[in-house]
């Protein structure tokens, strides 16, 4: 299939067609940005993987972080581009599944805390008491860079839950929305994925007079490609390895800048142990 027909095939009804399940390798991704960006980004990836693997490959969009994990769990997709936390959740729900590749940037990912200009908050080396009583928005409830790590550092700094620290805590749903909400002043402060922010600033989509970065978290591991453990049984011996190789071999800047990542490197489940520990610490995951 050429690119145009492929893009047209990214239909939301596709997920419900039983035929999809037969011999097509289907993947999804957490919807961390505007839908248009996701379609652009992953439509190209599907084309690339199809070329490299010699099987039909399809990308299916989902509505929420948890829907991506659910689709992975019920085998409607065999691979996904997960965040740190969703990846840990998914691999816990589907025993045998493994992280196979992460972005070069994902070994040391960070979150930005961003603030509306009306708050008077200025960039600083640490979170200060000036944050108290402000309104604050996370991204998705299941986001690593938009919820898990920011909440962890808030609790570490202030020793209390965000709900008592701020006068209002919201969950915007994705990073694009978090930026829009803080930019418009609907929330005073927000936490956002640094890569989405930097790409937005570079593209001129963000009014940096209205909203600016006030703090950056320490580094942590984030996004990764996770594949189901039964992929080899279904698509042939060595399939998982071929998928991994295809991802690592991705060098076309056109494909990579859409993420945005400079390239992919191997990853393992163990790389994400710190994420799991953090999730247990802030109480959004039960200790296993």
């Amino acid at each position: 299939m050429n690119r145009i027909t492929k893009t047209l095939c990214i239909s939301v009804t596709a997920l419900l067609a039983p035929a999809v399940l037969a011999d097509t390798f289907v993947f999804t991704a957490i919807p961390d940005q505007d839908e248009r960006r996701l379609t652009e980004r992953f439509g190209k990836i599907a084309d690339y993987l199809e070329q490299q693997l010699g099987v039909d490959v399809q990308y299916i969009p989902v509505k929420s972080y948890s829907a991506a994990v659910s689709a992975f769990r019920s085998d409607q997709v065999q691979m996904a581009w997960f965040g740190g936390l969703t990846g840990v959740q998914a691999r816990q729900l589907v025993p045998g599944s493994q992280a196979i590749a992460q972005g070069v940037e994902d070994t040391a990912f960070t979150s930005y805390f961003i603030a509306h200009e009306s708050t008077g908050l200025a960039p600083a080396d640490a979170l200060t008491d000036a944050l108290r009583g402000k309104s604050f928005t996370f991204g998705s409830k299941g986001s690593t860079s938009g919820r898990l790590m920011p909440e962890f550092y808030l609790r570490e700094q202030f020793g209390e839950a965000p709900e008592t620290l701020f006068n209002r805590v919201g969950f915007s749903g994705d990073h694009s929305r978090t930026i829009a909400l803080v930019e418009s002043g609907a929330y005073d402060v927000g936490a956002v994925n640094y890569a989405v922010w930097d790409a937005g600033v570079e593209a001129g989509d963000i009014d940096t007079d209205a909203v600016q970065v006030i703090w950056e978290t320490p580094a942590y591991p984030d996004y990764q490609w996770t594949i189901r453990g039964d992929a080899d049984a279904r698509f042939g011996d060595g399939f998982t390895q071929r998928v991994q190789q295809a991802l690592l071999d991705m060098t076309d800047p056109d494909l990579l800048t859409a993420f945005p990542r400079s390239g992919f490197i191997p990853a393992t489940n163990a790389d994400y142990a710190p994420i799991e520990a953090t999730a247990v610490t802030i109480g959004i995951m039960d200790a296993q």
Partner: protein
Amino acid sequence: MTTRPLPRGTGAMRRTTGLFILLALLCLPWADIAVHTLAPGRELGRLAQGLLWPQWPTTRTLADAIASTLAFAFQGVALGAIAGFGLALLYRRRAVRWLAASLRAVHELFWALLFIQLFGLSALAGVLAIAVPYAGIFAKVYGELLEETDPAPRQALPANAGRLSSLMFTTLPQAWPNLAAYTRYRLECGIRSSAVLGFIGLPTLGYHLESLLRQGFYAEAAPFFYALLILIATQHRWCRGWMIPAMLLAALWWLPPVAPVNGALIWQFLTHDIVPAPLRSGMDALPWFMDLWQGQLWPGLINTLVLAMLSLVVMGLLGVMLFPTVSRLFGNRWTRGLSHGVLVILRSLPEYLLAFIALILLGPSMLPAIIALGLHNGAIIAHLIGQYSNTLVLRDDAARGLNRYFFEVLPRQFRLFLAFSLYRFETVIRETAILGMLGIPTLGFFIDSAFAEFRFDRAVMLLVASAVLNIAVDSFARRIRQRLHLQHKVQVC
């Protein structure tokens, strides 16, 4: 000349109304009603502009979304009606009544979240999400309709006539017109429910509405918005006779209700995932439960009640204020036509969608939810009372204007108003819980969090709490209706 005497018991009605208003006022200090966007007017302007100058999607996208919306609605309602009829035949049994009450006490969206865990994001999950709660509703309404049939023909049957013959030849023929009319009406509700399921990822009109509205693409969202409005507003015109079975067959062809059924997954969900975590690991369950109670159950319950009380009173106020605008006793043809149009729009659109739009405009607080619930339900009440008021016959020299409203019409309609409002109480509570999924910290907020954290044990606990709250409110409202001798029944979704 037929002026009806004022009904008895007006004192009790006044006291009940006063009590509800007082309760709502007491809720006010706990309610979070503030506007948090800096320029809601500008956003509203952009929305209006988008609605006036819609940008059309590809025909394929729009047609797909409409077809899927109808397919989920028809299959869900059909399956719900069949199951509900089966339950209705046994409706005299207490266990069946309880089962039906619990099925309908959980909102379609919550059922959908559960079924998506079992069957993935599949056609089957969507169909069941509508069918299961609707079966509970059908069981109740069908049960009552069957009970209300005249027993005389049944008693005239020979003694050895079987139960099936009795049902087929005496009960069913009598109840049939009402059963059919109600089922047709439920289809309208089904279309609304189906559209709302799109908000969590099923490919209906709501899917596109959610994405586009959230990103502020109002012009692109407008066609989907109009499609939903037209489907619901015209439903009673095209959805009749042979069209219904034809549509159902088409629905089965378009979206076969199948799913990748994974027995092991379902078994694990039922025997492991929903078992409270401390029981699984053999730890003490009390701290776990207390944590859940203090952090989620209690605040969720309080916020649900606060929001519901305020919405109920706003609904009542709007209902009382708006009904004259569609009544033949007031205004002229033009004002009535205009009001009718506005009320049809408000009651056609699901509360969930209205709240979603209001949240975008006003920012996150209880205010958008109160506005959405008040407008939608107030429009329903105003429409119903307006209809009934047309049957009033006033003296030729009856007062006009405000005097007519306050001293002639409102007192005569007040009993009806109270009956309808109490009927809406349960619906308002149900919808209030679900609005939590939009970020208002009612029970739905915590249920959504539990699903996002894949902690199904907590999710089920919270779902049970919301179901118990619904059942309690329903029986409370029924008790008041009985005390006030309010007999008027109304079944609206």
